[in-house]
Structures are given as structure tokens and as C-alpha cells.
């Protein structure tokens, strides 16, 4: 299945892109996306301790299963205001 993954702020900077399409196996979870990204950004798991992820504009946990067409985002600690 295909999902869109979006990168903001420091994630965007680290990865050098704002978003991408990712092809994942059926029943893939958010953890699979982190694993995939770890290859090019080894510190991501450590960084994930303070970061969050979202699926379709809602915060979600690492084990959340994905579906075709989902919009995922990596969300560094927010600093609005």
C-alpha cells in the first residue's frame, strides 16, 4: 500500500524533503516507517523519544496500523505561540 509521509521543521531539515510517498507492506505500522527512515537518519529512534507522529491529522502511537492513502506526519516538539 501507499502512504504519504510529511516531515516538518527539524525533520524536514534532517531528511532534506517535505514529504514523500512510501510503499509499505499490508498491515504496516508507524514503527515500520521509523525503521525505514533509520537507515538514512540513525538518530531518529532517539529523537522519537520527544517527537510524535500523526495519521490523518490525529496523533497516533507507534503500533498504529496504516491503510492505503493514509497521510502520516513526523511531528517534532511543537513550539507555536
Amino acid at each position: 500500500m501507499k502512504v504519504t509521509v510529511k516531515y516538518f521543521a527539524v525533520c524536514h531539515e534532517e531528511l532534506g524533503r517535505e514529504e514523500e510517498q512510501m510503499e509499505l507492506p499490508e498491515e504496516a505500522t508507524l514503527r515500520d516507517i521509523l525503521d525505514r527512515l533509520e537507515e538514512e537518519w540513525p538518530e531518529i529512534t532517539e529523537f522519537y523519544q520527544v517527537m510524535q507522529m500523526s495519521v490523518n491529522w490525529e496523533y497516533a502511537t507507534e503500533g498504529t496500523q496504516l491503510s492505503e492513502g493514509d497521510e502520516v506526519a513526523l511531528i517534532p516538539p511543537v513550539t507555536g505561540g
Partner: protein
Amino acid sequence: MFKITDEVIDTQRVISAVEADNAGAIVHFLGTVRNNTGGRRTLYLEYEAYAPMAEKKMAEIGHEIREKWGLDRVAMMHRVGRVEIGEVSVAVAVASPHRSDGFEACKYAMDRLKQVVPIWKREIWEDGEEEWVKPDPVYFDADRGVRTSDG
């Protein structure tokens, strides 16, 4: 009204969004860009947002305020892009029949915004350096309610 905008925030419009003939009080908060952080001179700020999720999260804060205080006239607007010193980066307005609820609810809206609304601030210093701003302690103190079981 819960909105991300890349234009100068019209604060009167945020007030107008909550005005009602049965409200006796409007508490209105403006966040403005300071010319320094801890004494170091700031040139300007840049804000980035995950706009559709940010608007959804602000609307959810509105629902929380309705549940906690029974107030349903809440507006939040946050700017993105380059924001100059002294300009408004965020405006919140809450109308209420009584002022003390309005103060509490407006403060709550800002506290929650800094916890859950996906917006990021980049500081461009006068000395030429720039960096993503560190999160407010409230972000880590609060129950964010989404990561503890699995995060």
C-alpha cells in the same frame, strides 16, 4: 474560527468572531514577536505549521473549552511564514458571560496550543545564526495523552 494564515493577523476580526449580544466579557490574547530571547537580539521569526492538522487541533481545543466552561465562542488564529518583531503571531479570543471563566479559558487555549498544535518556530538571530526554537516546558509537563502506552 480556527485558522492558520500567512497574512498579517487582523486582531479585530478575531474579536468579531466571538462577539455576541449575550456575552459580557471578551478575553483576547495576542502573542507578539519579541526583539530578544534571553537577552540575545532576534531579527525575526519564521513559523511553519502542519496547517490542516493545526486547524483541527485548535478546533478540538475549542471543544475542550465548551466541555470545561460551557463557552462556545472561541477563536484562534496563528500566523505562519516570516513574522517581524512586534507583529502578532497568534491571537485567541474567548467570549463569556462572566470574566473569570473567560480569563481561565483563554489561558487554557494558549497552554493547549503550545502542547498539541503542530506549529514550529524558527528564530533568526541578529548575528546571522538561526535555529528551531526549543519547546516550552509545558509541552513535556502536560499529559499529552497519546504516547504513554506505546511511545
